[in-house]
């Protein structure tokens, strides 16, 4: 059956809440409205206002109370309405959500999932197209996850909700309507496994979230050039699957990391650094990074010039090959 990413995520929430009555969902407009993207559609109707509720407009409040609820024994799933509105919760995430388990020597667990629709490509106004994943990938104590396909949307969200560790779950909002043939419930590879979405020999494209699809399109387009690209979907930034990444580069000898976020000190730097370290003797060209420019996310009419697309990635492949 063809399902969209949005349906997959919504179903994952329904199934998790049906299975475990400790799972609660809250955030801004997630109740009767079902969230601005309808990812929480019908949760309140089905599970009642106690288990799915609207909060006052305060993101630090949302994450901070989620921590308290988790200490009590609940498994809160909270929504940040958009990527750019995660920032007020930064202190609660970095100083408490990430650190409480370690601080308490393991006596306090915080099984909290923070859902964040992220990334651009939907023509939105400012603050609605950010890619903040690397602020959090750098925080020890968090898991950082971003699905690129509907089945992974379902499976990784279910795994996030059952995880005893806090998870920042980045939903590629421009892929909410991306379709895939899949039957729910589905379980895909667990956290910490990158997946080869397309095997190839010429070079490897590494991506996660929204750029997985773009890389697949690039690989198709590259066939015209006679290039056989491998596409690796990283899926979880932390834990990071070095092994699969390195294995792929050992095979292809060339690596291009792709994300929407500005390149400077983005997650691509970590991938590039690891590849350059661990596949040193196998690299036939430097690891290249393709991403947004080092500027703030631009206005809607200019986002196409900011975002990596098939052409920009092909250009990088070309540069890699001509090394």
């Amino acid at each position, binding site marked *: 059956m063809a399902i969209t990413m949005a349906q997959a995520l919504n179903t994952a929430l329904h199934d998790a809440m049906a299975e475990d009555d400790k799972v609660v969902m809250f955030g*801004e*407009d997630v*109740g*009767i*409205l*079902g969230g*601005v993207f309808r990812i929480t559609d019908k949760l309140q109707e089905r599970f009642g206002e106690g288990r799915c509720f*609207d909060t*006052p*407009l*305060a993101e*630090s*409040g949302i994450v901070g109370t989620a921590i308290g609820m988790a200490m009590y024994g609940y498994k809160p799933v909270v929504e940040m309405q958009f990527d*750019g*509105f995660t*920032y*007020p919760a930064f202190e609660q995430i970095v100083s408490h959500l990430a650190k409480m388990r370690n601080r308490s020597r393991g006596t306090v667990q915080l099984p909290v999932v923070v859902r964040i629709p992220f990334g651009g490509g939907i*023509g*939105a*106004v*400012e*603050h*609605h197209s950010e890619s903040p994943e690397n602020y959090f990938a750098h925080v020890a104590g968090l898991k950082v996850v971003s699905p690129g396909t509907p089945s992974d949307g379902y499976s990784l969200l279910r795994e996030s909700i059952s995880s005893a560790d806090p998870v920042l779950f980045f939903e590629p909002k421009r892929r909410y309507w991306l379709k895939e043939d899949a039957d729910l419930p589905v379980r895909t590879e667990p956290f910490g496994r990158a997946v080869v979405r397309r095997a190839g020999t010429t070079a490897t494209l590494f991506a996660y979230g929204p750029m997985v699809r773009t890389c697949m399109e690039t690989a198709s387009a590259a066939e015209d050039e006679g290039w056989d690209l491998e596409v690796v979907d990283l899926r979880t930034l932390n834990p990071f699957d070095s092994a699969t990444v390195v294995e792929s580069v050992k095979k292809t000898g060339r690596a291009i990391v792709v994300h929407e976020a500005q390149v*400077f000190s983005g997650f691509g730097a970590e991938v590039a650094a690891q590849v350059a370290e661990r596949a040193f003797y196998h690299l036939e060209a430097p690891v290249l990074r393709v991403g947004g*420019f*080092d*500027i*703030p996310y*631009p*206005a*809607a*009419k*200019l*986002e*196409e*010039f*900011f*975002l*990596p*697309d098939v*052409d*920009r990635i092909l*250009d990088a492949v070309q540069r890699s090959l001509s090394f």
Partner: protein
Amino acid sequence: MSDTKMPLDLDPADLLPPAEPVQLLDDEGTLHEVDGYPLDLKDSDFRDLYRYMVLARRVDKQAINLQRQGQLGVYASLLGQEAAQIGGAYALDQQDWVFPSYREMGAALVRGVDPGKVLHLFRGTWLSDHDPHEHHFGLLSIPIGTQALHAAGFAMAAKLDGSDLVVMSYFGDGATSEGDPHEAMNFAAVYEAACVFFVQNNQYAISVPLSKQTKAPTIAHKAVGYGMPGYRCDGNDVLATYAVSRKAVDRARAGGGPSLIEAVTYRMEAHTTADDPTRYRTPAELEQWKRRDPIARFETFLESEGLLDDAFRAEIDEEAQAYAKRMREEIYDAPHGDPMELFEHVYADPPASYAEQRALLQRELDEHGTS
């Protein structure tokens, strides 16, 4: 130990806003005097207030249409909030400043900002398109409540500089739950900065009604915690919003410090054009508020005062059409502008690394016309 006593020589009850919001025009448009809120308006002021409200509504409608025609990505309507916004901004002098949220097209008009320019944000031509310093009107602020701190800081600076300008910060009922407006009110109070916090309580934060936002008796009561006055007015009565703002602004200018105004109003439109309000509110509720339309009410009053004749109506109508036309001209098929400009304004002193990135973009433009 003086610290264990109340530091104020006030009757405690004086700290509290009145039980009823200040209303000068009742729902039928009849004027009632209210103690402490004298009206210092001339006929031309009455007419101006009306003019701005009608223009705001027309401009708002034009923006919605532009959005429906695919010319804007999204738009946040002020329908129903004309009196609240305009009464507030009208109480300011030219030297004063406004720090708006994303819904302040009406206040922008009063400040003389070209509505067409404001729309570039919603079209996505650029992230904004007016110079704040020209009209003393800050950039529309999207992260909720954050602009309240800029307003407080600006007012702190003005005070330090010996200026008597006043700053007005707009935000919504929902914004009162965020930390930033809380910190802003506290800073403004501590430094006795000339900052007026103007809350348009339009009953909703997207789908979330006020009753789920706060248990405060009213939003004006929140002022107590900062030791500042909290004023409350009927936000659909432009004379009330003006009179209350006048009081707050005069007080601030005279060195009396900040205050909080709650204008009780209603968002007649969807939260933004992307929203579907039928999911969370009833036609009956809308109907109730429709009957309290701020413009209709003020018209009744103006008519009874003989201030609204056909000639004036026609004049405003013409002005409104002209505004709308200019907006269409400004926005309709406005080109996206030069992508190379993306690197122009990030830094006064851009990093060397931009050279390479500029070159990449230029190459992309040359080869594909897009990235």
